[in-house]
């Protein structure tokens, strides 16, 4: 009887502790969640032949963390992602396994648009190109980043050419130039994201692309309405609200990143979220 009471008492104590404990674990700071990652060079020496598995574990941790954060942000809870820590973890992962395509793919998906770390991502992708010599996607990403973010069309053409040679698909050769001249920057971005979303297996990543496409489409929609307004009235609208009052559009679309669209001084459509999840 006495031992039963003790066991029941212990179970009760456990239940009392486990709820706040799991809540603490769930909400602890990002640095603790992603954990400390030893420098890749040191880790390579320690983990020996298990380094490929270690690299994938790091990548999956980053992916899970980002996916979880993405879920939180969809409910409009403001949490600033620890991009630097994520990037560092992935950087170490590619030091452990320079062939791992998940790291390059995720860096391209998360750090270019969200963080604007295009040069760092390109440097990581170029590191991967030294190893994944058969993979056309890496030069394709570098080419896209060079054209879209850095406006370096010469480098873009060079990398798209390399992607074309590796894939046997001549489309890449003139992709950058064609989209820029015929469709414009936003359409180029949408086309790129649609290609990426189509080939993404992971649901979370697919969703990230879809949100970005949604944001760019809303931006393109508003920019088109601003152009029409300017043509009809011979002046720029004072605000996006004027597009609604002049019956050019029914309503201002929502920014999927939780921000609000506005017109900046130069007449360009922008969002307060800058198309990134942040506080």
């Amino acid at each position, binding site marked *: 009887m006495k031992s039963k009471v003790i066991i029941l008492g212990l179970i009760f104590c456990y239940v009392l502790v486990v709820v706040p404990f799991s809540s603490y674990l769930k909400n602890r700071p990002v640095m603790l969640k992603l954990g400390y990652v030893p420098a890749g*060079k040191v880790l390579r020496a320690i983990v020996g032949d*298990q380094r490929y598995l270690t690299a994938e574990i790091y990548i999956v941790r980053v992916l899970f963390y980002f996916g979880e954060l993405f879920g939180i942000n969809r409910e409009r809870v403001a949490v600033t992602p620890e991009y630097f820590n994520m990037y560092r973890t992935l950087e170490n992962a590619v030091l452990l396994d320079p*062939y*791992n395509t*998940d790291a390059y*793919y995720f860096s391209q998906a998360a750090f270019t648009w969200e963080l604007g770390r295009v040069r760092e991502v390109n440097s990581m992708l170029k590191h991967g190109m030294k190893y994944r010599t058969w*993979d056309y996607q890496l030069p394709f990403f570098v080419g896209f980043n060079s054209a879209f973010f850095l406006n370096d069309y010469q480098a873009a053409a060079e990398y798209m050419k390399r992607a074309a040679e590796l894939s046997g698909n001549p489309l890449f050769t003139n992709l950058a130039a064609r989209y820029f001249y015929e469709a414009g920057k936003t359409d180029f971005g949408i086309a790129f994201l649609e290609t990426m979303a189509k080939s993404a*297996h992971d649901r979370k990543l697919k969703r990230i692309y879809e949100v970005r496409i949604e944001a760019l489409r809303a931006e393109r929609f508003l920019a088109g309405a601003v152009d029409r307004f300017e043509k009809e009235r011979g002046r720029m609208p004072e605000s996006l609200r004027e597009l609604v009052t002049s019956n050019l559009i029914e309503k201002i679309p929502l920014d999927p990143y939780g921000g609000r669209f506005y017109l900046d001084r130069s007449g360009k459509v922008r969002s307060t979220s800058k198309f990134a999840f942040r506080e």
Partner: protein
Amino acid sequence: MRLFLALTSVTLRGILRDRMLRAILGTVLLLILLVPVFSMFSMRQVQELAITITLSAISFFLLVMSLLLGSSSVWRDIERRYTSSILTLPVSRRAYILGKFSGIAIFIVCCGLFLFLVSVPVIMFAASSYPSDVPVHWLNIALAIGADILKYLLVAALALLFSTISTSFFLPFFATIAVYLAGSASQEVFEYVSGQFGTELQPASVAVIKGVYYILPNFSAFNLKVPAIYGLSHSPGGLALTTLYGVIYVVILLVLAIKIFSRRQLP
């Protein structure tokens, strides 16, 4: 020869009777069967992750087996006075050490082959769910497991050597782990000191590091996982050299173990 075969057979049967080893094998088998589920965590390289996890699980299992079996071989027999009774028979100490090692080696080789056969349908299943642009290179996977087997034969020989000078489990077990870790990292350290960093060090320190590099067994040479996972090509010359290196090193360790055991006073 007959007695050597009998010793090998006794060692092998002793290993197969060990319930703890069976439990470890069961756990690794379960892990390999769960590979298709784990590999779904990858975004773009499901097949590659399936091969990575399978090879890692096999490598880890063989490491544990070679460490445990090698470390608990000779000293335990001495402690139980089993060697004293065996050596009253017309069995040389050399045949005793070689019989012990052969039993362990046969077990490691059979486990490696068995796990390879189990992993084939598992990898095929994972690869069929999300086909990769890189085809599965079965020969490379077999070579990676073969290199792992040779590596862990080397670890077992090392543990057996330490076991011949020890009177407890701790020295062979921890000394083998220490040499294994150092031998896995030695290539990285060697390349590091051979580069720019080496010019900033004292020449004597560089010479010592390089000397240690040549003495320690180079375990990183047996790591053929990248060609197996990403379908890269092998250098036949490199493979032959690695095999030769492994075999010669094992033979050296066994000769040393026989020498030490021959001089050891038994209770």
